[in-house]
């Protein structure tokens, strides 16, 4: 792969939000690949790194809104781990492949699309910068 965005989506929030985006026919580019997880807190740095090793253009971790994680601390941990992964990537000189953590509610398909567009924009910008 080289243009795909790998998105780890929490089944309590982002996954249903993505479903809703489809139901509402809010079209978005085909390069998104969603991996369903029980909580954003399941995702660790190694999953993000492996996605990049396989050639992902960007990685997203999407979890519940602040203060509303189904598992209390999963989304805040995910945020920390994404930050940590960014550091791990930066220290090996990989700064052109964006990784981001966003919080959204299951009924926010528009936010889901916004996050996706933002990520695609970042991919484009970092490619151009290169």
């Amino acid at each position, binding site marked *: 792969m080289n243009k795909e965005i790998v998105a780890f989506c929490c089944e309590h929030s982002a996954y249903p939000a993505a479903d809703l985006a489809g139901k509402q026919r809010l079209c978005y580019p085909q390069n998104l690949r969603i991996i369903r997880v029980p909580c954003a807190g399941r995702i660790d740095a190694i999953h993000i790194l492996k996605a990049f*090793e396989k050639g992902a253009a960007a990685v997203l971790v999407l979890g519940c809104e602040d203060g509303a994680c189904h598992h209390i601390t999963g989304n805040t941990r995910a945020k920390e781990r994404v930050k940590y992964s960014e550091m791990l990537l930066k220290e*090996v000189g*990989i700064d052109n492949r964006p990784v981001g953590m966003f919080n959204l509610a299951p009924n926010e398909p528009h936010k889901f699309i916004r996050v996706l567009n933002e990520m695609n924009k970042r991919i484009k910008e970092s490619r151009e910068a290169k």
Partner: protein
Amino acid sequence: MIIAERKPMEEIKQMIAPYNKLLVAGCGTCVTVCWVGGEKEVGILASQLRLARSAEGNEISTLEATVERQCEKEMTAELKDKVAEVEAVLSLACGSGVQTMAELFEDKPIFPAVNTTFIGMPEKEGLWVEMCGACGDCFLDRTGGICPMVRCAKGLLNGPCGGTRKGGKCEIDPEKDCAWEIIYRWLEKQGRLDLMRKYYEPKNYRAVKRPGKVQAMQA
């Protein structure tokens, strides 16, 4: 428990620069518990190195393995076959584990991926603090169980320095309680302040002759 932290990536990259086949070796004891050299960190570091080298167009292949205690020859010897396959080993064990590995596999370059920092304990999840300096001449019976040798920034034995900040905080870290302030509070609570009033002679800094060696008496 021995606490360590990962070396700066630049340093690691430089060490392994000439090699294209590497064993990343973790240790399942102290460094696993302090989140720096267990199976998980081995995976992360190996992945990072592959990413780094792939970006440079100079691919590296990695093997990953974690043994129970890298400082035990018998346990580390299990890695023999894997070591034979690679050009060099990057060890995430403490300095002791790295040297055990080096002694076992004399013909292979063995590199440390972590800096061994101190003997400590977890203050909370993910935060470790130094507790023991392994001085070989334990003083804790006189200080309410708090070691002024490592927990006082200056290692003072006869009370706090004049640098103690307002509220009994350490001169160099306003977040941290002055060790002597804690010692005072605890001894006071135990009614043993007389221990603090006593004069203590300069410490024997050579209680452990370097290099240290401990011979057990029982057989």
